[in-house]
């Protein structure tokens, strides 16, 4: 098992344990939908420069927690800091600008933009993105050239350079996952949050995706990713956080987690050992949401 560091050795294996150098610290984050508590995280820290996996059975609130941290949803209560500064209640685009960039479970490649345009979109602080400056090409043409160069470098690294001029909609599912990850890097983030990066990717590409994730850590970035598949988690994560029913129930290395009885109980009955197809993921997501709706007592509301 490749491990880049040994920081986790002295860390306690308890939910909410403190890390030597946390980049992300969340406290008392709660999100309810009607009557059901989807997320209720007391305290969690994410170690800087690590690959941390967030796992849990369906409906555990992983994606909701992700949405909250990245400003895509608003919690009922809770605070969290990123790199020492509070980012709670800050809109999603500002969270991204602070250096915490996310991807989505269902890829959001911008279909009718070319692969290159997708990439260039990720670059921050572009002068040509201002309405009036956009009209005056000389104001931004030099910067545009730099951005294009950087985009091309990343495309080469992610082996998408041959698709540079194609519409992103022409890419395969796996290529879209790669594009989305590469595009997130254009933002030059400190931390990358990947929501099920392997979902719907064919096994041949999975390995390449995993290598890219590891490369992010090697470049000094922090990675937090949501995953169903224990095998994947085992392969690449330094640290694993387990959620169930909105709460964090365990933390530890992949080895600790795989023998943790609480985790096994939580997973029991769900098919965690087979990679899920996108359709299956959708169906499970739907199931979770329906469960929420029913709990809410919205059953009598159409």
């Amino acid at each position, binding site marked *: 098992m490749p491990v880049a560091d040994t920081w986790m050795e002295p860390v306690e294996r308890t939910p909410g344990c403190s890390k030597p150098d946390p980049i992300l610290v969340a406290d008392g984050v709660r999100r309810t939908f009607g009557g059901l508590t989807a997320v209720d995280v007391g305290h969690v820290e994410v170690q800087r420069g690590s690959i941390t996996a967030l796992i849990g059975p369906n409906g555990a609130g992983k994606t909701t927690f992700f949405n909250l941290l*990245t400003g*895509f949803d608003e919690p009922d209560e809770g605070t969290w800091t990123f790199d020492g500064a509070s980012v709670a209640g800050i*809109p*999603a*685009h*500002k969270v*991204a*600008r602070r250096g915490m*960039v*996310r*991807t*989505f479970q269902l890829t*959001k*490649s*911008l*279909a*009718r*933009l070319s692969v290159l*345009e*997708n990439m*260039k*979109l*990720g670059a*921050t602080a*572009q*002068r*040509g*993105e*201002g*309405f009036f*400056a*956009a*009209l005056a*090409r000389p104001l*931004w043409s030099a910067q*545009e050239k730099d951005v294009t160069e950087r985009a091309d470098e990343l495309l080469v690294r992610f082996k998408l350079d041959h698709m540079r001029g194609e*519409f992103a*909609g*022409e890419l395969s599912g796996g290529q879209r996952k790669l594009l*989305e990850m590469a*595009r*997130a890097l*254009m*933002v030059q983030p400190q931390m990358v949050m990947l929501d099920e990066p392997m979902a719907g990717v064919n096994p041949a590409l999975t390995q390449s995706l995993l290598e890219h994730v590891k490369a992010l850590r090697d470049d000094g970035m922090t990675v937090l990713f949501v995953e169903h598949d224990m095998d994947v988690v085992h392969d690449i994560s330094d640290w694993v956080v387990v959620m169930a029913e909105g709460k964090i129930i365990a933390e530890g290395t992949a080895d600790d987690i795989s023998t943790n009885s609480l985790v096994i109980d939580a997973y029991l009955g769900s098919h965690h050992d087979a990679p899920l197809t996108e359709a299956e993921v959708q169906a499970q997501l739907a199931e979770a949401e329906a469960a929420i709706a029913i709990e809410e007592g919205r059953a009598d509301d159409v």
Partner: protein
Amino acid sequence: MDWRLIFDTALTQGFGPQAIVVALAAIGLNVQFGYAGLLNFGQVAFLAVGAYSIAMGVDTFGLNFWLCVFLALLSAVVLALLLGFPTLRLRTDYLAIVTIAAGEIIRLVLRAGSYRGTTGGAAGIQNFADDFFEINPFPRGSNGIGFVDYSSSDLWVMTVGWGLVAASCLMIFLLIRSPWGRVVKAIREDEDAVRSLGKNVYLYKMQALILGGVIGAVGGMIFAIDRQSIVPDSLGTQRTFFAYTALILGGSGRVGGPVVGAIVFTFLTAFTDTTLRELVENNILDKIPLLPSDLLVANEVGIAVQILVGLGLMALMIFRPQGIFGDKREVAISARR
């Protein structure tokens, strides 16, 4: 059947002031719908703001015509802010609902007897654009170019109008090729993705709504100036959807699409309208066996054209959403998502 008359009328209208109004309204919609994916169903509200700012400014408040032009643009910005502020954070169907409602609100208020002193009520306002026609460089009388024939004031309106169309297109061409355009087009595809990359989606949507609205208001000004008259009932909701039809006909999401679409649309509607009128006047329909004798009477021609536009919009959206010149590939991609 006077085919010469039919073609002349259609051609004259196809490049005439009415086509300019449709073109500007459609260019505005192109920014909002074609590029940013915003469903503005109340473009007519912006036309109304443009038209009435001039009419009321000059006639009711006695302001300078050119000051009113500026006020019209400013009012369009304010209207866009008012409509965008509550809706642009929500799904785009909310924008559609609010804008279609706003178009009707504005028309109802303008035609209300209660404010007749200010707005002219249902009778509207006339003769407010003398300042515009005073600087008309074209000699009086009628000016023929080939088949078509325009009055000197029409020519003046057309010169300014097509000039504004060209200027708007140039501006959009520059904007869309810039990083700004990239962000806006990306929002059309998936706004959450754009948000996750650190762009303030709300701001861009607002800018697109404002830009499209202001261009629509320019169209409204041409609409009012051309006839030197504005009545609220000429600003019914269907006018928005004429512009949508023109936009989709020419190809939405292309700089020249709305312009080509507006010319073709205006030509086709004028052609249909004149042909139907000729058919009715010459009692040709009556001679066709099996057709009921009262199938179409003269005062129903306008309604018949609107039916055809409605069906045409449906057919375009279903069978050729990329427009008459569009690329099938883009449609295939957006369908696959």
